[in-house]
């Protein structure tokens, strides 16, 4: 599975990383090298093996449906790039 420049463009878009045209060939080369490294996986037969997501097979804990968080929005919003009246500001998305 080798990559081409169109793939790199698509990946950059999915990752929401603005990549300049002149950076594309560099990324193509580096990402291809990493894919070559991981290609070794394909030679192993894994039929019938359960995928392992976590080291310990634990089940997710449940808790009672009650509010446990205290309101600290002022502290959390103090580190935001742009805030007004308790709201995060972003560029207009609806014309």
């Amino acid at each position: 599975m080798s990559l081409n420049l169109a793939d790199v463009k698509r990946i950059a878009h999915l990752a929401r990383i603005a990549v300049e045209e002149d950076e594309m060939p560099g990324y193509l080369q580096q990402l291809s090298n990493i894919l070559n490294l991981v290609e070794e996986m394909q030679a192993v037969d894994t039929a019938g093996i359960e995928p392992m997501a976590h080291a310990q097979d634990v089940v997710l804990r449940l808790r009672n449906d009650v509010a446990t968080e205290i309101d600290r929005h002022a502290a959390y919003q103090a580190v935001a790039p742009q805030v007004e009246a308790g709201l995060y500001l972003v560029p207009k998305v609806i014309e």
Partner: protein
Amino acid sequence: MINTSLKELSAQLASKKISSVELTQTFLDRIKGLNPKLNAFITIDENKSLAQAKAADALIASGEAGPLTGIPVAQKDIFCAEGWLSTCGSKMLHNFVSPYDAHVIEQFNRSGAVNLGKTNMDEFAMGSSNETSYYGKVKNPWDLDAVPGGSSGGSAAAVAARLCPAATGTDTGGSIRQPAALNGITGIKPTYGVVSRYGMIAFASSLDQGGPMAKSAEDCALLLNVMAGFDARDSTSLEREKEDYGRDLEQPLKGLRIGLPKEYFAAGLSADVAQAIEAALTEYRKLGAQTVDISLPNSKLAVPVYYVLAPAEASSNLARFDGVRYGYRAPEYTDLADMYGKSRAQGFGAEVKRRIMIGTYVLSAGYYDAYYLKAQKLRRLIAQDFTNAFAQCDMIMGPTSPTTAFNLGEKSDDPVSMYLSDIYTIAVNLAGLPGMSVPAGFGANGRPVGLQIIGNYFSEAKMLNVAHQYQLATDWHTRVPQGI
């Protein structure tokens, strides 16, 4: 004072021979003098540290001190600490003063320990040389031309240069053990789930685990006693009885079966490292242990599997950095999509962007089964290798890293060659096992060699015992870099 063990420092604090303020000031002065050379710290805040030291002295005076009360501990900058700049080595978080404490920080605060400052690291813990930090490279105190390893390179260099009595690290693919090895210090990555990941900025959540980095196994046991513990805010934190990790330190090693995986002593291991590890094993035999040849047949798959799973999890975790709620936002943009793209392009460094993009690709439609699911299946085979091996031995030993510290710049242009420096450490994270690195001599170039000890699940106390007995018989862990 700078070479004194935590146990002895604690005794001196308790007997009022020294105060925490004096101790903290001593290390702050050392940092001021030596950090310009080493760049091991990103943030120092004398006032905050000294205020904690004063409070610790009051606690000691009132007779309510614990083993770490008044001890200054340097914190890897991956741990969020309230009121402290917490950058994770990235421009993305260059202005992030954390509004909350990580569980690990809370635990240290509760114990009365002093936060001595935030240590440098590879950006978002992605790297093995500390060269990807936005805040500049860290230098290895044993040789200023050498890398300190990574990603916890700042913590390792700080402990080695005695800029702090102890530090914290995190280990996703070797980030505690490899820098510990390259700096001649002791570090342990516990079993996955023992130390809470709450407030530890996420890289690859199914692999990330915090742990201590210090001058000896005995010190690591004291630190792990504070760091470990159940925390409901981390969904993978394990509910287990609190244990004393130092309880077995003095046990003799007679009859210990040490497994030597043939894959860890094969081509690629440099001769000087092999020689130092061989000498360490001879020491263990003198202590009454026996060695057993074992095999971890799927070892060669660990690096490929890791470079699918870790980037995949990273691409998901790092999606939160969008320039909206915290961190860096690009100064100019046209619309929301442009703001996301530019903030992330400008806020992340090259290695982080590469890994996000690889992770995005392996999770994308049409490739998920071939890469991500395939890697998860192989992960089980890798974990199974260890289960099989522990039927034949009590501990597994080998080199932590195939070479001693390499030169700054030597591998920074070739990511894939950098990835291979973690060839012996990555499988441990994939299996979720505890692993540690212990100083075991020096290579041909005078740079430290680390012996890796891998234990079965939840065998940290035994591993620390195995390391401590070696440290009673040898003095590698007491060596300090000269001429810095």
